[in-house]
């Protein structure tokens, strides 16, 4: 299995873009500027993410998941 690569190894943060409300909480708390958010599009910029999970805790509607196994490429 191939995994997406974060700054600190395997990427373990998974945004479910279809369920996102594009509210920007996660972007506001991300220390690494690792989330790109447009009007109706969101994704992690893998090489910046440190898997700190702050975005996971801040998402009001639980659409960012922490995946210990790593996010498949």
């Amino acid at each position, binding site marked *: 299995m191939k995994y997406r690569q974060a700054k600190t190894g395997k990427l373990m943060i998974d945004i479910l873009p279809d369920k996102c409300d594009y*509210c*920007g*909480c996660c*972007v506001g708390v991300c220390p690494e*500027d690792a989330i790109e958010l447009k*009007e109706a599009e969101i994704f992690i910029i893998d090489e910046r993410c440190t898997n700190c999970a*702050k975005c996971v805790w*801040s*998402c009001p*509607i639980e659409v960012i998941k922490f995946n210990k196994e790593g996010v498949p490429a």
Partner: protein
Amino acid sequence: MKTDYDIIVVGAGPAGSIAARFAAEQGASVLMLEKDRDVGYPVRCGEAISKAGVSEFIEPDERWISAHISKFALISPDGTEAVIEFGDAGYVLERRIFDYELAKTAAKAGAEILTRAYVNGLIIENGKVCGVKYDYRGQQKELRAKVVIGADGVESRVGRWAGLKTYIDFRDMECCVQITASNINVNNETLYFYFGQNVAPGGYFWIFPKVNGAANIGLGVSGMVGKKKSALSFLNNFMEQNFPSAPILTSIAGGVPSSITLEKISAPGIMLVGDAARQVNPLSGGGIASGMIGGSIAGRIAGEAVKKNNPDYILTYDKEWHNRLGKRHEIFERIKNGIYNFSDEKFNKIAHSFNSIPKEKRTLGRLFTTALVNQPSLLVDIAKVFII
């Protein structure tokens, strides 16, 4: 459209529109860029604002006023209601129209506006911000400006690109869900705030009335709480218990950066306003009025800097904001840290002792004093709030 402007504003929320307007009123050429298709939509807000907060910037208009507010009801965990009467104090807005009308006042003052323009980078030369890079309907473009004003909300990235430290501690992020529901039987002049571990630990749950039996309902909890339970599950629990069959007209997530203002809100060629600068009142989570105030100061100073041909003049913005509201927000932040950590028993006790005060003496100041009677250090802070 020109190829360069005196001032480019990123984001067309209340802070951006007022910044654009005040800059244009100084005679500067101004362009405001908004990533979304529509100014004013989607709404992610409780839409409550004081009368004074509105009137400083726009003549109140029934087209965007959904309710007139004269009372606050604070509901403790055991259901005790502490009601404070204010007279004709505030509004619940129809922000969809309000934001749109504010943008029109900027346009009237001479500002150009472009929607569907997603700013994704800055032009930086010799350490100074000199313009923006943006995507417009799939085309990557650039525009130069003497000053860029970042009014890009809670999700702001413009400041970071300019090297300002703008990300917010997740514990200070009030993570919200907000709905508009119909058939909600509440008093249409009262803002309802619910406190307690079950409804919104470290924050509050609100019901704000809107026209024709609708209401703006929602809650915010700190990212710290979100670690265990999301805002959405709190909302679902509350609605199931209280309004299980209320029709839901809108439903959306949102974030309120509830902290003091950023340490630096200007740097060469760049200024930040509104949520992007973390100018929200950290106690109430209200950011419409304070964002407009921040926008007005920044817009005017940017316009003056252009007129004076003195780029460094924009750096006077930090101090002016601090004196107008920033200082006060530091006090509000300390009060917030006191109040939002109260136990359910404490909230109940406060509500009971407040209700034992004669009705005509139940003021907000009195409530705070009752709330904090055991915390003298906070009392000093509160005294300051009412003196400033």
